[in-house]
């Protein structure tokens, strides 16, 4: 028996187990037969075992370069470095589905262990929902794109991983994004369970709060890593092109961001239940839609796997998910209705509601722009595409409104803000923002969008700084601690609130990075001979020489460029042209000199061997580093929010059943 048969067998057995886990859990809960519920849960655990075996078999085949397997032969080669050989697990169609399945079942298993004795009413439905999702991916792997398809001969060499993927971001971007995608399934499953069981309090929200945050954490990182990857690899000087697949990663992030905010309204005011349920259903549907986009070939994209015929399966699954979920919501609508209503525009509830509207507006814009070619072809018979200008035009004003609300939301009073409250909380931050804008104007900045954006950034940063300052001062006065201790205690007592502020600071940094790099970008194209110089911004670049490097895997032509400011040498850059031999594919390696102020981004554009001339494309991208830094700050803030405070840990230890841990936090 060939090793790959074991993998196929594991997937087939997994398919049966997923089917059984779904059926047994549902029968068990509906017929009140506890033994079936237990049996379904055990089947779900065994399913994880099967998936783990299949992944192990695949990894073994990749690492041993078993080219008899079509997958291994298609995505690796003998000269491919080991790290990328492992990453080839998610580099191709079948492997990426397998990887997705593995992460899903890892999450499901953690959920089952966490909730062994909790949420008895919800868990059978949770098991059934998660197993159904597994069943869908297993069906694809068993019937449509067999992961362990064997060739009838053993090629001596594989056709190698796409060179664009041979980059260290390949090791971290797809796993982060998939983890973000997959963990949306957990709150979705609990939401379905809440709807099905009729237990529609905020129990399902509280018990999956950390999963939601974990998902958001990974989606944030996935998007930021994706941008960084595009920036460093694709060589067009930017980090975001509104490509359908980038959009596919961005849309669930937007909806999850809306969800994270609106659940606070439900926890606090018992409002927006239907809205929250709808948001998580939408977020899950968008993860499936995203997987569909990357794999169906319906919309052309840099990242697309291939036109594989998988599209219809995803669409049917998506349709089933939406119809099923909407039917459940419709059925439970009478008990989802809330008695409370908004009282004033000047209230935190309203700020959060508008935040949600804007986030969904951005999401809809992105969705519409992405599917527009398909829709226009249906309606008018001709494909019409909208490019990045469309997305930027609509999303820039929406984004600025959102930035404004980022400052308003956390500090405006609940219910109804009095004029006094508004003055106390907003006078100083607004003054900071306006003053900052005036200073920038005096310094010569004339672009309205930039002035507005930077002013709003200052406004939001000021609101956060004041919150930290006031909290610290209050503790100092109350407990008599020194400032540093007071600050540390302040944060450690309320992770949700102050972690949330840290995330908002990260958002400010991201906005500064986007504003700087999109509105103040410079671009210069120059064709030079060795020894000649050209300049961009305050920099002079001198092309010194070309050098060559050759190994069995890749041939490299490297340009050595000296970077000067005035007469002072500030650095050396080595942009490259590479030729990957196995697929016979050339690539361009960008060289970037990063500083806090700006990135000098140098591309070796074209070589003309007869004349010895080299064309460089050079970009000066201000503040890009702030964007990456902001992403890191957002991730850090999310980590703080996710970590239980000492009080929360004690409360949980005291009630092992954990049906309802008291909410220590005011807001997050």
């Amino acid at each position, binding site marked *: 028996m060939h090793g790959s048969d074991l993998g196929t067998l594991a997937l087939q057995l997994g398919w049966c187990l997923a089917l059984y886990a779904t059926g047994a859990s549902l029968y068990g809960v509906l017929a009140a037969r506890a033994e079936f519920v237990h049996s379904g849960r055990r089947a779900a655990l065994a399913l994880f075992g099967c998936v783990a075996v299949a992944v192990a078999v695949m990894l073994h085949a990749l690492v041993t370069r078993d080219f008899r397997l079509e997958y291994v032969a*298609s995505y690796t080669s003998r000269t491919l470095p080991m790290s990328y050989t492992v990453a080839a697990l998610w580099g*191709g*169609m079948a492997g990426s589905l397998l990887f997705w399945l593995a992460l899903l079942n890892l999450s499901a298993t953690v959920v089952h262990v966490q909730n062994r004795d909790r949420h008895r009413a919800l868990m059978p439905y949770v098991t059934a929902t998660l197993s159904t999702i597994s069943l869908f991916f297993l069906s694809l792997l068993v019937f449509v794109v067999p992961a362990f398809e064997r060739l009838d001969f053993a090629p001596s060499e594989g*056709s190698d991983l*796409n060179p*664009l993927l041979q980059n260290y971001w390949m090791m971290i971007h797809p796993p982060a994004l998939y983890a973000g995608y997959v963990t949306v399934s957990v709150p979705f499953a609990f939401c379905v369970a809440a709807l099905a069981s009729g237990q529609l309090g905020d129990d399902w929200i509280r018990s999956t709060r950390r999963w939601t945050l974990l998902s958001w954490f990974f989606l944030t990182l996935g998007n930021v890593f994706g941008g960084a990857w595009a920036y460093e690899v*694709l060589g*067009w000087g930017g980090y975001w092109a509104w*490509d359908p697949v980038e959009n596919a990663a961005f849309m669930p992030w937007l909806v999850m961001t809306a969800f994270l905010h609106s659940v606070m309204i439900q926890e606090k005011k018992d409002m927006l239940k239907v809205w929250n349920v709808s948001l998580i259903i939408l977020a899950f549907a968008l993860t499936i839609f995203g997987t569909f986009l990357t794999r169906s*070939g319906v919309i*052309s*994209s*840099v990242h*697309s*796997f*291939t*036109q*594989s015929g998988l599209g219809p399966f995803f669409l049917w699954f998506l349709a089933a998910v939406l119809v099923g979920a909407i039917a459940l919501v419709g059925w439970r609508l009478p008990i989802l209705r809330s008695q409370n*209503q*908004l*009282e004033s*525009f000047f209230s935190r509830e*309203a700020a959060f*509601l*508008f935040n949600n*509207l*804007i986030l969904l*507006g951005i999401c809809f*814009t992105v969705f*519409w722009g992405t599917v*527009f*070619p398909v829709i226009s072809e249906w309606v008018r018979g*001709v*494909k*019409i*595409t*909208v*490019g990045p*200008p*469309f997305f930027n*035009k*609509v999303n820039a*004003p*929406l984004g600025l409104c959102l930035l404004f609300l980022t400052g308003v939301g956390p500090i405006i009073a609940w219910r109804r803000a009095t004029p006094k409250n508004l003055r106390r909380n907003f006078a100083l931050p607004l003054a900071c923002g306006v003053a900052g804008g005036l200073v920038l104007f005096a310094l010569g900045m004339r672009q309205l969008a930039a002035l507005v954006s930077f002013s709003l950034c200052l406004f939001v940063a000021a609101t956060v700084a004041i919150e930290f300052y006031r909290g610290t001062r209050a503790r100092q006065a109350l407990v008599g601690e020194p400032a540093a201790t007071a600050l540390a205690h302040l944060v450690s007592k309320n992770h949700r609130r102050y972690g949330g502020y840290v995330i908002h600071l990260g958002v400010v940094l991201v906005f500064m990075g986007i504003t700087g790099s999109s509105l103040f970008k410079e671009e210069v*194209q120059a*064709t030079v001979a060795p020894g000649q110089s050209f300049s961009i911004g305050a920099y002079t670049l001198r092309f010194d020489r070309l050098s060559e490097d050759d190994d069995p895997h890749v041939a490299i032509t490297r340009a050595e460029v000296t970077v000067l400011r005035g007469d002072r040498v500030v650095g050396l850059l080595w942009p490259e042209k590479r030729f990957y031999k196995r*697929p016979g*594919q*050339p*690539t*361009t390696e960008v060289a970037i000199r990063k500083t806090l102020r700006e990135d000098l981004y140098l*591309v070796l*554009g*074209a*070589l*003309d061997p007869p*004349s010895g*001339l080299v*064309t460089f*494309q050079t970009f000066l991208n201000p503040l890009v580093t702030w964007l990456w830094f902001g992403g890191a700050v957002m991730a850090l803030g999310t980590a703080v929010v996710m970590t239980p405070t000492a009080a929360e840990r004690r409360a949980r230890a005291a009630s092992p059943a954990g049906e309802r841990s008291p909410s220590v936090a005011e807001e997050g």
Partner: protein
Amino acid sequence: MNRNLRFVAGSALIVAAFGYLMYTAIRETSSYYLTIQEFLPRKAEYANAALRIAGRVAPGSIDYDAKTLRLRFHLTAFAEAGAAADTVAVAFTGIKPDMFAEGRDVIVEGRYADGVVQARQVLTSCPSKYEAKAAAAAPPGGGAG
């Protein structure tokens, strides 16, 4: 109820502003996405309109000056059969993309005027194994610029 009405009105205002923004943005930024087969018979109709045209680089048609970065080539249909098939001239100034070569599938973005597609951008599709399989059956996917 009165209060709710206010919020509905407020939200409706936001949605309307948003709709207007979308509408104008689409009008100003959209372009026709055509295969070369769709474009060639009706090129007069598309004169001066924003276009994205998917086609194949005609063999022997590339004229590139590495000093001035002026690239000229002809775009032809995907089918190999009609060797002397109809083509359209493309003019582009900029760095020739890595994957650009005779017989490659490309997407050209620009406007058609005076018998030449003045390209703002030339996108190439990846020739990797899984893409190649698909390209045989259907127009190409996009590629990194």
